């Protein structure tokens, strides 16, 4: 069995699959007001994204990289600051109320927390029936009932009779997330936007929910945007992976290419940070975590770094990186990255076995003006400071 065995048709041919939902150069700025006046948070900048029929696209990145904002922009929860969103080639704009209903009939958002996204006071029959009725997908009690049964079967909650009269609190986390998926399916959408749909679930049932989403893709041609920071699950489920950093997309391509041949230093950082017992547990923990210093945190999006936003954390940063923003470079068909290493002909650096990310902690401390970070020294001082207090001991610590 080889790597490609389950992925024979990978990457799916873009040309063959129609684009359902598209974002073109979408930008979102939030204005925040504080004591010192207002500031602009550049949460999402210049995102291009295509969701194809029957395809799962993953969006990975650290917290605060703008992943959720993209999902909310695509679901018209926020109006965009710039750029366009197109549903089946037609531009859509931020609308509310009944006008939004047609859009929501095509594009549905899956929330992260199935414990908070279902009405605790209503049975499953009501929760699913309401979505059907609002969108006019079923008329009359009998038809509604029948459709609910179908939905429950589609998300593998069988037999449906066993679940239809239950309340959310009677279901486990995985079952609730299936109800959330069934409710989204009730309106017969073409696109689902999953914002960390498995991160609140127990590990033992995550795979089943992922498999369900894969099944919906394969059997019903659903387009799914899968947002996560767990790059291993993104690889398992998605056909393509997009990597976001500080509000921008920095790399995109077929899942296997992005995982096995990352073309942006940030993607390498994400991959190197993810635990993977598969790469071997030989040796002690120190060797697995060794030389990991302070890997840093994403920059402020109010005053993002000039040039490439990753440059302050990048071990390969050159002068040009903090002057000009890199252009998109196509490395192989369908696989692109925005990084100066490609234009400067230094992309081989990304293939190194060990990349030293971040600053060793001593250096970081020295730069921050900390004179001593040697734990033993500090400990000695502790003992000195504590002095005779250790004499004041309880009955079982003579």
């Amino acid at each position, binding site marked *: *069995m080889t790597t490609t*065995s389950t*992925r024979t048709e990978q990457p799916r041919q873009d040309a063959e699959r129609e684009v359902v939902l598209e974002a073109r150069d979408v930008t979102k700025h939030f204005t925040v007001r504080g004591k010192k006046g207002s500031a602009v948070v550049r949460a999402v900048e210049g995102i291009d994204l295509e969701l194809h029929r029957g395809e799962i696209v993953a969006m990975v990145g*650290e*917290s605060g990289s703008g992943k959720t904002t993209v999902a909310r922009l695509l679901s018209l929860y926020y109006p965009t600051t710039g750029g366009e969103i197109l549903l089946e080639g037609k531009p859509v704009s931020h609308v509310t109320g009944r006008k939004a209903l047609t859009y929501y009939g095509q594009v549905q958002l899956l929330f992260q927390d199935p414990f908070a996204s279902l009405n605790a006071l209503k049975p499953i029959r009501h929760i699913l029936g309401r979505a059907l009725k609002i969108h006019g997908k079923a008329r009359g009690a009998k038809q509604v009932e029948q459709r609910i049964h179908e939905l429950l079967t589609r998300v593998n909650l069988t037999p449906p009779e066993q679940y239809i009269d239950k309340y959310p609190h009677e279901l*486990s986390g*995985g*079952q609730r997330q299936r109800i959330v998926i069934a409710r989204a399916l009730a309106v017969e959408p073409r696109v689902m936007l999953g914002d960390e749909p498995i991160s609140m679930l*127990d*590990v*033992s049932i*995550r*795979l*089943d929910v*992922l*498999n369900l989403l894969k099944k919906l893709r394969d059997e019903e041609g659903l387009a799914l945007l899968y947002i996560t*920071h767990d*790059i*291993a*699950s993104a*690889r398992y489920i998605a056909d393509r992976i997009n990597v976001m950093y500080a509000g921008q997309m920095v790399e995109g391509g077929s899942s296997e290419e992005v*995982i096995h041949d990352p073309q942006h230093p940030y993607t390498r950082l994400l*991959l*190197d*940070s*993810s*635990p*993977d*017992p*598969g*790469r071997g*547990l*030989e040796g002690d*923990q120190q060797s*697995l*975590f*060794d030389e*990991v210093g*302070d*890997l840093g*945190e994403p920059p402020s999006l109010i005053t993002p770094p000039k040039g490439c936003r990753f440059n302050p954390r990048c071990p390969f940063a050159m002068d040009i990186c903090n002057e000009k923003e890199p252009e998109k470079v196509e490395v192989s068909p369908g696989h692109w990255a925005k990084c100066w290493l490609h234009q400067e002909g230094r992309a081989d650096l990304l293939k190194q076995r060990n990349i030293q990310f*971040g600053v060793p*902690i001593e250096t*970081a401390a020295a730069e921050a*003006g*900390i004179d*001593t*970070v040697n*734990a*033993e020294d*500090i*400990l000695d001082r*502790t*003992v000195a*400071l*504590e002095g005779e*207090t250790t004499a004041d001991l*309880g*009955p079982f*610590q003579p």
Partner: protein
Amino acid sequence: MTRRDVGDVLLEVQDLSVDYLTLNGAVSAVSHASFTLRRGEILGLAGESGSGKSTLTTALLRLQRSPAVTVGGKVLYHGDDGTVTDLVPRTDKELLHLRWNKLAIVMQSAMDALNPVKRLGAQFVDVLRQHDPRMSEKAALERAGDLLALSGIPRDRVDSFPHEMSGGMRQRSLISLALACDPDLVVMDEPTTAVDVVMQRTIMSQVLRLQRELGFAIVFVTHDLSLLLELSDRLAIMYAGKVVEIGPSTELYHHPKHPYTKALRDSFPPLYAPLVEMRGIPGTAPDLMNLPDGCAFAPRCARAMDLCLTKRPELVQVSEKVDAACHLNDPQKEPVGAGPSDARSENGHAA
């Protein structure tokens, strides 16, 4: 094979049982947990939600609150001077000398564990002076800065409020706070679930560095088994309130002796290894109110036998360093796991 050298026995847990008292009777959240922790050792504790991980760790430190009650067993703490103390019968007052000085905890949610209306420095001073009333405010603040620097936080952060820091920084300052009195044992209850993978890596490398320099033992609780495998010396797997397998991490990964350990291990999609269709563990965790007569995992177990439905397996030694509670390990039966590759593909289709 142990991954590193560890020291003498620090904590001996014997038959520890914790019940939750409810109107419908007692629910046994942890039953007869036994294990030994050595100085400087990292013990990982894994299991699904509701398996009793957090109940066990709070009971270890005697931090459990009603309706949780420790109904049996011992937690023997071996002091560095050779004395042995059973923590279970001690009153809070008696435990005061051990808490934070010897036994510390890093709570799950950094946002809830820090006081939102006090500056970080004040929270450190509070702890330091509580445990050493003779320490001056100035010395304590100085020490707070040192402690923050330990986990790579600039010392001027003593003047910050928790909301002014990122989630990762808050979590790191909690770790610093736990180390304030140089404890022998630090219990970490899912310290990295609220942060992303990059921050998790930063935090874990710092914890390991501090652990190496200061020598404290760690009980690390999480449901992220892949992280635990990389991090811990030994692993304990919990299911329905019981420790079902315990042993060196590498052993449990390569040769799991309990089907649940194997299923849990195979629940994580690989990062680089060839992809195959994978399945989760079928069914749901049992209701602790009415556990089956036999093995609690039997209804979800692909290899359950008749015996499993009637007789509850005990945690017994099954190999040199591994204890497991599964009838499949009885001498006349075939063993549970082969190498990881066979086991993976087998699991993919067996369920």
